[in-house]
């Protein structure tokens, strides 16, 4: 048990549950949040070692959240893995590829994500 803490952020509680199950199997502790604002609070409280952050969320979306975290010296070093829906290229898609890159998040994965891939990515950033 490395005991490292991973924060899982998504507005769909079922998705959070499922990712939490996978990440815990990987030997990490897990904190959860269901929107960007909650994530900011959890980051401040729990000081996670890695953040898995969904892009499309109400209240405060993943792009804004990642930018805010990277703009703050206290949280800049925490690796962020952005979760984007597959083929988010439909006309109304709110976020472009560029938006995702501009967040300076360390990594991004399309969801759903296979457990082995997810754990591998987390491991690579810790």
């Amino acid at each position, binding site marked *: 048990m490395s005991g490292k803490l991973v924060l899982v952020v998504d*507005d*769909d*509680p*079922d*998705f959070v*549950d*499922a*990712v939490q*199950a*996978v990440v815990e*199997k990987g030997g990490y502790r897990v904190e959860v949040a*269901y*929107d960007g604002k909650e994530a900011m609070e959890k980051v401040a409280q729990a000081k996670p070692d890695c953040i898995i952050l969904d892009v*499309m969320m*109400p*209240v405060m979306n993943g792009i804004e959240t990642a930018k805010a975290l990277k703009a703050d010296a206290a949280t800049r070093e925490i690796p962020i893995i952005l979760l984007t*829906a*597959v083929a988010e290229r*439909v*006309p*109304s*898609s709110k976020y472009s590829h560029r938006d995702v890159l501009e967040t300076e998040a360390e990594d991004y994965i399309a*969801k*759903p*994500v*296979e*457990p082995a891939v997810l754990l591998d990515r987390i491991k690579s950033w810790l």
Partner: protein
Amino acid sequence: MTKPIRILIVDDEKVIREGCARSLSDRDYEIHKEENGEKGISRLQEQRFDIVLLDLLMPGMDGFSVLKWIVAHQPEVLVIVITGFATVVKAVEAMKLGAFDFVGKPFTPDYIRLVVERAVEKRTLMNEASRLREEKNLDLETIVEEQSRLQTVFSCMEGAILVTNREGVVVLHNPAAIKLLEIQTDPVIGKPLADSIRDQNAIAMVKDVVGIGSAITKEFPPGSISRLYLRAHCAPVRTSTGKTLGSVTVFEDITTHKRIDEQKSEFVAMVAHELRAPLASIEQMFYAIALCDENDGDRRQHLQNRISVRIKDQLQLIENLLSLSRLESGAVVLTLETENGNTILADVIEAVRPRTENKDLKLQYQPAPQDWWAQVDHDQIRVVFTNIVDNAIKYSPAGGTVTVSVSVGSSLAKVAIADTGIGIEAENLPNIFEKFFRVKGKATRGITGSGLGLSLVKKILEAHKGYIDVSSQPNQGTTFTISLPLIPSGVA
């Protein structure tokens, strides 16, 4: 000229009258005779004649008086005066007054025939000329009428029409052109198109069409030519020999089409997202289940339950989507029947009641004291009540109460579905009937749905000439009130 030439002979001497008539009898003329001036005039007043053979010297009213009368009243009639041999002077005088020709007495039949023939010829020509004149006038009238008709059509056309010559100078436009193209130049005609339209692409289009001699269709987004989204069809104007004289461009306002297109794309994107996002969660839950071992029994059970719920939600979403689309396209024809409202509500409540049992919720039904009747589509109205009661259950925490009550007025039945649930923030209230709108926050976490239920309810009620109201207090509860037109109980 099929009508025969009509000739009137006015002479007091019977010998002359008969002689003239006989001389002309082998021709295709219609001949009448009168013995004095008075009778001649009254005959002329009664009937139309082409030619009058008129004796100048008659007792009573003489030939000159008759001639003057004819010239004054029937100038188209040709008068040939008959004079005595010695009275050429009188004949000349008669000619000056307007007679067509004269014959001196005595005359040979040939001579009279010759003079009359000349008059007939003249008469025929005059008739032909007047016919041609009439025809020409008629043609002109048609043309003028046609032009004003085209002008009217041109002016009334919704699309903008702009005609330029080969040099790109505007030669014609309709009123819509000023409006649609937001032209401020006045006048537009006679000036280069570039004076009136600033957009370089539009100018180039017209130039190209004149240059290459074939039509171009092009779209101009708002801000290029005007604030409207325009589609232009620009075609060359050619002579019959194929020479290009200029261009005619028809601009059509397609702003609304474009907006509908955009809305459609947005809707499709939204539907795609709503269909896909839950699938990602479902697959993610399957991944998680695959990792579960014998110690993770509870977690496995929970995930399995959630997968089942989410799949049912997706099926409901597809169902609602189809119902909505059918309602909106008018493909659904409601089967309206007079139904007892109390019975329908009682059925719905009983069907929904099991959903309250594992949630510690009270579901109360207070039917109207009297039966009430409404024209409804049984299945559709059940969808309405089921959706609203179901929502009340979904958004009420354990220990709450959902109350369905009915008040029957003079023309409307009002069904109120009140819950003691989480309520809806005032800022969200206007949006709840929009497709895919769902309130997301801590309180609604874990509550899933299609996001189409209320849209569907609203549509169905509109089709029933009913409506739905909502009032809500955050953290205290929400009341939806469904109003349906009543059928007087006696009719049922």
